[in-house]
């Protein structure tokens, strides 16, 4: 038999299945990030949503620089004027410039939405991860708290408290919105944590003697991060919607501050006759939330390997995983 190759030293033979050749993926450590970015860019929803959000931010923060009008100062020569070169979005009953007001309101709504989403996501991840990881009484107490806060529609509670906050400004309003916006996310984080806790890499860390808080920070939270990012994105949209609804009914942002909600409230009755008082704010509101939702949906597809965007690929793998 001539076919037998010369004897290979043992370590080399042992190394054999460790050779890098058969693994097709890129070697760069940023491989996953690139994968996610690639998937995101492949989704038209994310691109469109991202572009819209970017433009709206430019509008909200650059808009005031473009117009000579201030959102509060009336132009007595122009009362309830339709949009024109002078007043791009027209003027209201006091002669205030609707463009300046809308841009100002958009600014406030965006900032509130972002802050609320940030705070509520932080709260949800901490509460959820602790409840799920520690289990026992911690879990029972936190779950009861979550259930308790879910008994009432948060709108009712915020409405009741809001008179107390009169005069404290919109930051208190942000805190209030965030305080009633984290519960469902926390529930999801809790159940994800519970299943992560059973995963072998967490067990391995426990058996190595890694401390619980360190495990939560190093292993649990990074592994729910993709859910949290997606959820936070969608929470921005939800927070903006809550903010506008509450402000519309007079329980949120108050004069002299303006938000999209207060603008809508002011313009509602006149909408049939003076549509510019209502539809510019309404349109921007829907556009912004829509863009945010598109991004959120695209992110979910990109970050979650089992999500529907990548499902055809997953399905094709299923029958082949012969084990």
């Amino acid at each position, binding site marked *: 038999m001539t076919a037998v190759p010369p004897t290979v030293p043992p370590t080399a033979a042992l190394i054999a299945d460790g050779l890098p050749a058969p693994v097709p993926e890129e070697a760069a450590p940023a491989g996953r990030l690139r994968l996610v970015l690639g998937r995101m860019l492949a989704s038209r929803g994310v691109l469109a949503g991202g572009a819209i959000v970017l433009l709206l931010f430019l509008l909200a923060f650059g808009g005031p620089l473009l117009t000579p009008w201030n959102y509060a100062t009336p132009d007595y020569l122009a009362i309830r004027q339709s949009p024109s070169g002078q007043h791009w979005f027209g003027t209201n009953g006091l002669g205030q410039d609707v463009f300046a007001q809308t841009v100002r309101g958009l600014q406030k709504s965006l900032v509130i939405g972002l802050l609320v989403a940030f705070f509520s996501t932080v709260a949800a991840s901490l509460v959820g991860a602790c409840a799920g990881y520690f289990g026992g009484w911690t879990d029972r107490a936190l779950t*009861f708290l979550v*259930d*308790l806060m*879910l*008994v*009432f*529609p*948060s*709108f*009712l*509670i915020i*409405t*009741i*408290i809001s*008179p*107390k906050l009169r005069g404290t400004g919109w930051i208190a309003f942000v805190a209030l919105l965030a305080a009633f916006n984290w519960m*469902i996310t926390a529930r999801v984080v809790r159940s994800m944590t519970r299943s992560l806790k059973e995963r072998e890499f967490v067990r391995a860390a426990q058996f190595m003697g890694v401390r619980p808080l360190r495990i939560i920070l190093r292993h649990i939270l990074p592994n729910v991060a993709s859910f949290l990012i997606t959820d936070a994105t969608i929470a921005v*949209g939800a927070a903006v*919607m809550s903010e*506008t*609804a509450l402000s*519309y*009914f007079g*329980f949120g942002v108050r004069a002299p501050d303006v938000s999209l909600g207060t603008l*809508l409230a002011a313009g*509602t009755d006149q*909408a*049939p006759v003076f549509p510019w008082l*209502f539809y510019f704010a*309404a349109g921007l*509101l*829907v556009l912004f*939330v*829509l863009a*945010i*939702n*598109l991004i959120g*949906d695209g992110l979910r597809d990109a970050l979650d390997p089992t999500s*529907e965007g990548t*499902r055809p690929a*997953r*399905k094709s793998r*299923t029958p082949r995983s012969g084990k």
Partner: protein
Amino acid sequence: MIRYLAKRLAYYAALLVVAVFLAYALSSTALGPRTYFEAKQPRPSAASVDRQLTALNINDHTPVVERFGTWSSDLVLHGDLGRTIHNTSVNAEFGRRILVSLRLLLIGSLLGMLLGVAGGAWSAIRQYRISDRVLTLVSFVLLSTPVFLLALLLKNGAIAAKDAVGHEVIPFTGYETPGLSGGIGAHLGDWALHLLLPTLSLALGGLAMYSRYQRGTMLDVLGSDYLRTAEAKGLTRNRALLKHGLRTAIIPMSTMFAYSFLGIFTGATFTETIFGWHGMGEWFIQAINEQDVNSVIAVNLFAAVVVLASGFLADLLNAALDPRVRS
């Protein structure tokens, strides 16, 4: 199984008691009925204000726990929810408004769920075709429109239609035409027409949300092993999808049902206010503005009961749909 549901019910009852107490404490401390009386013309004496507040059991000089004791014992023993700030019966107001709200809540949520489930399943089966893309886009736009805005838009549309035609095509205020003559048929038709816009403004949001979720769960099911088994048995694709796929994919919707009711309730508050329905939501906003503590608490109680009942209903539904939960 019965035991399990009984436990759930007990848990919900415990939640209800704690939550109602917290809501009571919150409403009683956050609202200021004293200012309401003090603002009256002519200004009543301090003693008289105190007397009126005490009579209504909303005097902020009485400890909250004591007020809650009085309120809850009246509720438990006599089924009495107290008096409004105008010294009328809360129960009477409650009775007048509850059916108005329930009509809207039930029809709106059920319609949204049914249409959403059907749309989502259909969308999943036709993934990436034109019909799926259109439904997806519509859902996204609806999901991005706050309910109050949707209601306002519908109302503005109805007003525009009225202005264009010259008379009211679709009614947009109230839940019936006052002083309508005619038989029961005419009344029913009138009710249905009045229901149209408020129900739509609630149901469309539900439709969008349910259809997104149903589409997701249905897509999960499409790749499942048991669907493949059903086809391997000799069922055609469509029958397998309907009988084995959809049946399993609607199970998670029962959980959605519980969560969505929170949103539906809030939405109904807006809808009632905008369409001039004298329901619980409108009452709530009114009561907040009048510092009417007992009415606010009554609406809170109603909300809590409705939300928890929907949670319990979701449990029942889940157990009915999924044998794995039952055992």
